[in-house]
């Protein structure tokens, strides 16, 4: 039935390997270099060779530089599946979805999915790197109107979204800050995290406004680096080096924004639709989820996404997050590597890679006890594009 999650693919495929390059202000390496290293790290993690790959899905970041011709950079021959995909921050989840569908359909057996970006330059900070982001996909000419108003990029769009939520539901900056504090607590235990100094709510409240109501500590990092994962059949994954991260549920939701009265896609996001599809496919409910790896370009994104997946009623996200529930020792471990706010920003690969590491049991002191069901989400645009995966430690 169209629109209904189909259980037939549940547990048929798994993520068998993950590769994460060095991250951050690394100026002397190209996007191709990062992407290549990420794939070879992921192959090594899985116990596979490049010649085992028969599929390649590629996602360029802000800097571009990757195309289907990246196959040749890798020296891959006779691929049965190849594409360059882009739904911005939703792409990582989407690539795994397409890989799983292709594997289940017999089009490929072992597919590498890669993202790499290098928007940071020695003479260009994070703010400048992402100044035009969020307006690039607007209708012709419209972006120029936004710039004329002084609306520059995603910070402005998410600030308007967060303020709308505050006005409708009474959400506060302190509640957003609780998310930043919880995630930084996770990051202190992640050697890969760029920001590992603990913060308090007072630190969050003292951090400068970027676009009010969003403060500096509400905003994600910007990173140069690359991440890849290897998707294969569950059968094959079982014989490889790591514990498989089984793909149990998949979903997407893209609300569109006709800018029309009554539409509130910035407070009722595509996460709701994606979650309904994925939970139905996985045969579970939100209360079964043991940990969340949520796309967190801003603290607000985490809050609204948790609401839309049904972890709490719409409008109650502020109260839900404010008592340490998401942090170490909390009842819903969320963004256990520190997320994009504190570890590194590789679009949807940040939450995805952390979920895979948790399922492999490779997270050291931040390892969660129970990874039976882990929710991974991706979000692009100004809450415009959404994709998710439910990963699990068992194939059912």
């Amino acid at each position, binding site marked *: 039935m169209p629109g209904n999650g189909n259980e037939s693919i549940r547990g048929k495929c798994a993520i068998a390997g993950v590769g994460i390059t060095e991250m951050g202000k690394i100026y002397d390496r190209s996007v191709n270099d990062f992407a290549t290293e990420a794939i070879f790290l992921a192959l090594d993690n899985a116990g596979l060779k490049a010649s085992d790959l028969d599929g390649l899905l590629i996602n360029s970041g802000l800097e571009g530089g990757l195309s289907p011709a990246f196959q040749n950079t890798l020296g891959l021959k006779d691929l049965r599946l190849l594409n360059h995909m882009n739904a911005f921050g939703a792409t990582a989840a989407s690539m795994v979805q397409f890989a799983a569908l292709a594997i289940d359909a017999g089009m490929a057996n072992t597919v590498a999915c890669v993202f790499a970006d290098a928007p940071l330059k020695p003479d260009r900070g994070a703010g400048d790197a992402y100044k035009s982001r969020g307006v690039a996909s607007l*209708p012709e000419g419209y972006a*120029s109107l936004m710039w004329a*108003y*002084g609306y520059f990029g995603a910070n402005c769009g998410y600030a*308007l*979204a967060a303020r709308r939520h505050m006005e409708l539901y009474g959400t506060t900056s302190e509640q957003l800050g609780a998310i930043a504090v919880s995630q930084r607590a996770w990051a202190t235990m992640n050697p890969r995290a760029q920001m590992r100094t603990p913060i308090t709510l007072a630190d969050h409240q003292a951090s400068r*406004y970027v676009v009010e109501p969003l403060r500096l500590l509400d905003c994600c990092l910007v990173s140069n680096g690359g991440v890849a994962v290897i998707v294969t059949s569950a059968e094959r994954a079982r014989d490889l080096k790591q514990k498989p991260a089984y793909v149990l549920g998949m979903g997407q939701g893209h609300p569109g924004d006709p*800018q*029309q009265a009554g539409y509130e896609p910035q407070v009722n996001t595509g996460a709701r639709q994606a979650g309904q599809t994925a939970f139905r496919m996985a045969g579970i409910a939100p209360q079964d989820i043991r940990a969340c790896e949520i796309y967190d370009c801003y603290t607000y994104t985490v809050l609204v996404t948790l609401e839309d997946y049904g972890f709490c009623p719409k409008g109650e996200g502020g109260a839900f997050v404010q008592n340490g529930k998401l942090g170490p020792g909390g009842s819903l471990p969320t963004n256990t590597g520190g997320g994009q706010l504190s570890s590194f920003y590789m679009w949807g690969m940040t939450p995805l890679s952390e979920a895979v590491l948790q399922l492999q049991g490779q997270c050291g002191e931040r390892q969660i006890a129970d990874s039976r069901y882990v929710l991974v989400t991706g979000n692009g645009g100004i809450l415009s594009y959404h994709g998710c995966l439910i990963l699990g430690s068992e194939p059912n």
Partner: protein
Amino acid sequence: MTETVQKPVPTPSPDAQPFYDGAKQGQLMIQRCNACGVCRFVARTRCAECGSPDFAWVRASGRATLISWAHVHQKYHPAFLAETPYPIAMVELEEGPRMVTSLVQLGNTALRAGLPLQVVFDDAGEWKIPKFRPA
């Protein structure tokens, strides 16, 4: 020698030309679907509600309410430095469409969702662009 940095100016697309031509005359022009009557902004060739390609440009009343707002503190562009932090907003026109815009003549007005607003037109290079003040 002083050099004044100009704010970014709009570059109208053919689809939206009537919006910019109207703004120059102090008129807020939006599209209205001739099939279902729903008004829209940004310019589109088809109605998002019913799919009809049949539309007319109509003059909006200029009355709107505040949906959301934010104050830009980040120094993105040199031409905005003198007024930073400055407000941007999403407003809902009386006719239905929402637009991203900016707010002017705020005085001591306490901003809140639902605040009644009225359009005004500000220079933007060779064009004018609609902004909103408290009604």
